[in-house]
């Protein structure tokens, strides 16, 4: 079995009050697409923050390539291994989309280096893969939510990190781009990368993820292939009664809302 790229060892997190994430252990290997699912407030985003060097856990450890992410990894080398796509970014100043994507090259540049042809090429490829090259000289402030989202995705790709962490990568996107972005992640994973994504759309998780982690009140209540996790009984215990699971025509599970 391959070594874990990213490993959480009984991680607990809290802001000032009670713990939001409680004793979560998780391993992410190359070639894996892990979807984290759970109700609102179950600690998904906090878990992602802990895994992305944004919030040190109160107890437990996060290991990147076997080294402690907070104690033994500096910001730049972490950013070369691990790229994060946030839910959204509010940008007050009118940077062009291309300039935003080029910022993804920061961890590869020394303090006094200017961007080289190599950096511009990485930015261009990332933008072409997210279908944002056409937006390159538009100010980020003028883009729609979905366009901005794809630019942020391109920025993460420009980082050329093996591990991608995403907070609801499909929110703000129309159905075409939802599928496109997830396909992109799938390709990334198939090419030897790894992705961890917080996902609300369980059907997309079923279609793309190799593993689903169910989170409830900060604890992992189930972990396994989508087929085993996305079953009605399990989901109802996590999300409540307003859903039902049918068989998708393609064979997998199909989660539908049930209107009482």
């Amino acid at each position, binding site marked *: 079995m391959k070594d874990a790229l990213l490993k959480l060892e009984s991680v607990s997190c809290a802001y000032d009050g009670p713990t939001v994430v409680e004793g979560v252990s998780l391993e992410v290997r190359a070639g894996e697409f892990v979807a984290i699912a759970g109700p609102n407030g179950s600690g998904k985003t906090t878990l992602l*923050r802990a895994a*992305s*060097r*944004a919030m040190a856990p109160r107890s437990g450890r996060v290991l990147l390539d076997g080294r402690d992410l907070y104690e033994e990894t*500096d*910001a*730049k*080398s*972490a*950013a*070369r291994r691990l*790229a*994060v796509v*946030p839910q959204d*970014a*509010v*940008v*007050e*100043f*009118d*940077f*062009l989309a*291309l*300039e*935003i994507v080029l*910022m*993804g090259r*920061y*961890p590869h*540049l020394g*303090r006094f280096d200017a961007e080289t042809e190599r950096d*511009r*090429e990485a930015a*261009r490829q990332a933008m072409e893969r997210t279908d944002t090259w056409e937006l*390159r*000289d*538009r*100010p980020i402030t*003028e883009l729609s939510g979905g366009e901005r989202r794809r630019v942020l995705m391109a*920025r993460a790709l420009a*980082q050329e990190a093996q591990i991608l962490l995403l907070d609801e990568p499909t929110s703000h996107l129309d159905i075409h781009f939802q599928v496109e972005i997830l396909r992109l992640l799938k390709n990334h994973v198939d090419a030897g990368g790894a992705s961890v994504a917080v996902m609300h759309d369980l059907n997309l998780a079923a279609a793309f993820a190799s593993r689903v982690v169910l989170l409830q009140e900060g604890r992992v209540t189930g972990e396994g292939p989508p087929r085993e996790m996305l079953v009605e009984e399990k989901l109802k215990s996590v999300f409540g009664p307003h859903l039902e699971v049918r068989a998708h025509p393609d064979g997998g599970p199909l989660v539908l809302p049930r209107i009482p």
Partner: protein
Amino acid sequence: MDWNGWPKRFIRNASMRRLGSGRVLAAAAGIWAAVAVVSVMAGADLSGVSPEIRKEVLWNLRLPRVLLAALVGAALSTAGAVFQGLFRNPLADPFVIGVSGGAALAAVLSIVLGASATVLGLAPVAAAAFVGGLLAAGVVYRLARVRGRVPLPTLLLAGFAVGALASAFLSVLLVAASRSWSEIVLWLMGSLAHTDAWSRLRIMGPAVVLAMGLAAIYARDLNMFLLGEESARHLGVEVERAKRMLLVAGAVATAAAVAVGGIIGFVGLVVPNLARALVGPDHRDVLPVSAAAGAVLVSLADLGARCAAPPLELPIGAITALAGAPFFLWVLRRKARS
């Protein structure tokens, strides 16, 4: 390779018109040189006076004064650009973290106590203002630090609070020291008329240059901050260290400017906005262009202060606000329309 739309210097999108910073800097240098020449020439007629007095006036009063104006303008504008970037707010100015409050309090204290000893050739008021400004910034930083991190909103609020506290003490001092009112009020309004301008330049010049250099080193980090602190962290910025360095740069530049020129408002607010309108938001362009434009504008404003109503000198802070406010409104409205 086909770099459609690359490099960004050639971007000519309908909504984005950016000038190269090189051209803007060259233009600013030219304009400043002209303003400097006029500033040295303008003023009382020197044709009838002895060569010694003429030399004294030109060499020890007017020339260092226009240099001082440039220094103060560059410092305030650099600090403004740094704080606007750091706080992601185009309405931030150099005085947001309490530097001006601390500087004013210390300066007035030194006036009230009648301090007379010079510090490294620097007038006691200037030295007190510099130290007071830095102290206030230090206190604000310390107050805002929680568990090794300094959240920017907390920093902003701590700055407001310390500023308010300083101005409360200042009011009490003012009432207690009615004898020194005119001196205090003149200092508070800002002025570049100093007989010891060269020694002010010698001390504060290097301080400002160092602060500008430090800001320049962290210009790229400042760009990252515009996407939010967490995003910057995710992209590999050592956020707390960058924040500390940028705050030091901004505080030193502001304290130096206030020490030599008193509290000159509006420059640090308007000039970075002007710079962004010209060259776009990248701080590697915004910082040098702000410094240059600030130098030009404060030099011009000081020329106006000297020459608008002779023999009276108008307070330079009034000139900068008088010219800056309408211009700022014009930029705002133009931006809102597009």
